[in-house]
């Protein structure tokens, strides 16, 4: 019987890993996604129960207390979180996962040291990796969370000599790591490594902000998986390695999709501190010509008239809609327009919002049928026959400069081509530039009119106006 238990645990891990793979597969299709998520949860449950059978797990009371506390907090968070705050939630959970993996490695190191043993070379190396990835994931995610929650300014933060400082830290990390490999029981070197990892995580996210957040969140998601994998190497535990690798792969794929949607490389997103300074290229000549041009501002009644008498209206939501929590009002406006026989579609840019798929989730919350949501490639050819494009809190993703102004920092980024519609209404709080720091030429075009105000107020006024038609 006693010999059977270790094999039973390994078989359970295999079952759990298979469930993770099938679950992830099913998460990729709307029809099966919910079942996929459930399969993942079942796999997790099997893995946990199997681990509790392990001979070395004896501390049941305390573990039970820990699991109860964690489950309670997790359940409360999942229930309470606003859909607009999903990016923060995922960021925070990433951080917790990374922290747990790092703690596992630190705990294992301490266990070996205090047993009076010297960790073998490959264990030391995996522990170093585990602490690095876990630590970076922890502080990086917490900073991303703080930026999204606006506890710290969301804009990229830079300081002089930033790259040299980062390089220096990385070199110290390598030096510390080398020392620990030579002296595997050195607690000072180990603490140094831990501290350096935490600082590196902060510095890595500090210069990234605003509209680049979807990339960072995806990348940290990938890291949280790799951290689990690294912890798996430390403990020689296959389920950790497999599950971590799966998550690592999914995070990397999403990161790549986001980068492609902005026509930038990952390195450019991570290291260029994009949007931190007003760009010189677009400044000079462009702003001057823009000053000569006129911005046409209208009131909500006029806007309602334009929308109400249109045949086809395309709504382009952006982060501004999320900030103003305007998704429900937007849906109501669409309902009113449909009542008048107007066809309404939604155009979603891949990097709209602060995480991949952010807009889709918000509109789903407001009960917008997902058959009305169109990806960039599907909707762009249609703009020619669109009567009114209604841009709500989006900016860079509709800037035509991306198509033709080679000196613009966003040149080459695929955009939603709202400027091809017969008319464009832009709801925006003011004339400020988008995250990229570039002025939006769209606002100065003859076909464009501006509705200045918060997304929710303006949409509510539009609803009232449309109702009176």
């Amino acid at each position, binding site marked *: 019987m006693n010999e059977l238990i270790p094999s039973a645990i390994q078989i359970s891990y295999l079952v759990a890993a298979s469930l993770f793979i099938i679950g992830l597969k099913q998460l*990729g299709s709307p029809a099966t996604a919910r079942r996929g998520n459930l399969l993942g949860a079942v796999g997790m449950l099997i893995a946990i129960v199997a681990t509790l059978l392990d001979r070395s797990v004896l501390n049941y009371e305390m573990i039970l207390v820990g699991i109860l506390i964690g489950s309670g907090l997790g359940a409360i968070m*999942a229930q309470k979180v606003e859909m607009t705050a999903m990016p923060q939630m995922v960021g925070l959970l990433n951080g917790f996962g990374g922290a747990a993996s790092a703690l596992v490695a630190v705990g294992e190191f301490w266990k070996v040291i205090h047993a009076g043993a010297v960790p073998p070379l490959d264990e030391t190396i995996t522990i170093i990796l585990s602490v690095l990835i876990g630590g970076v994931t922890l502080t990086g995610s917490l900073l991303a969370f703080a930026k999204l929650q606006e506890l710290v300014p969301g804009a990229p933060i830079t300081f002089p000599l930033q790259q040299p400082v980062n390089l220096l830290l990385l070199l110290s990390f390598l030096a510390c790591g080398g020392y620990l490999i030579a002296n595997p029981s050195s607690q000072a070197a180990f603490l140094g490594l831990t501290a350096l990892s935490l600082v590196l995580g902060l510095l890595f996210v500090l210069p990234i902000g605003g509209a680049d957040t979807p990339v960072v969140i995806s990348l940290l998601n990938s890291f949280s998986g790799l951290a*689990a994998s690294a912890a798996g190497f430390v403990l020689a535990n296959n389920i950790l390695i497999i599950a971590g690798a799966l998550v690592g792969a*999914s995070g990397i794929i999403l990161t790549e999709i986001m980068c492609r949607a902005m026509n930038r490389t990952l390195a450019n997103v991570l290291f260029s501190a994009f949007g931190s300074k007003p760009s010189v290229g677009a400044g000079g000549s462009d702003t001057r010509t823009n000053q000569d041009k006129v911005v046409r501002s209208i009131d909500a009644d006029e806007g309602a008239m334009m929308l109400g008498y249109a045949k086809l209206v395309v709504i382009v939501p952006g982060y501004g809609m999320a900030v103003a929590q305007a998704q429900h009002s937007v849906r109501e406006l669409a309902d009113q327009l449909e009542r008048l026989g107007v066809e309404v579609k939604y155009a979603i840019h891949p990097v709209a919002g602060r995480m991949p798929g952010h807009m889709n989730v918000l509109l789903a919350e407001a009960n917008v049928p997902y058959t009305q949501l169109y990806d960039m490639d599907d909707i762009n050819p249609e703009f020619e026959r669109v009567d009114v494009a209604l841009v709500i809190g989006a900016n860079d993703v509709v800037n035509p400069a991306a198509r033709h102004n080679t000196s613009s920092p966003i040149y080459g980024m695929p955009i939603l081509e709202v400027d091809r519609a017969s008319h464009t209404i832009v709801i925006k709080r003011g004339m400020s530039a988008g995250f990229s720091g570039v002025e939006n030429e769209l606002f100065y075009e003859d076909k464009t009119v501006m509705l200045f105000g918060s997304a929710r107020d303006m949409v509510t006024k539009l609803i009232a106006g449309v109702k009176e038609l």
Partner: protein
Amino acid sequence: MTEALIAGIIVFVLATFIGVEVINKIPPTLHTPLMSGSNAISGISLVGALLVAGDRNWSLSVILGLIAVILSTINVVGGFLVTDRMLQMFKKKEVKA
């Protein structure tokens, strides 16, 4: 390199390939749920936490392990529940439409 390490690397590389193949095509509507769902799976570090926290005798390791148990349980439970909450919204709409 020890045999265990080699075996681990083999498992890791193959699992990565599976991950890339399985997730490759994913509609934008599901980007957020995929992220929070896979995030919950990364809470698998709970298994490692249990092994580290399992010792009956108190030590720094056990305390760190228990903290890891709490954090990764939040990750697992919060991640799966919030993903389900989101997917439920997608579903409700499907029935309506």
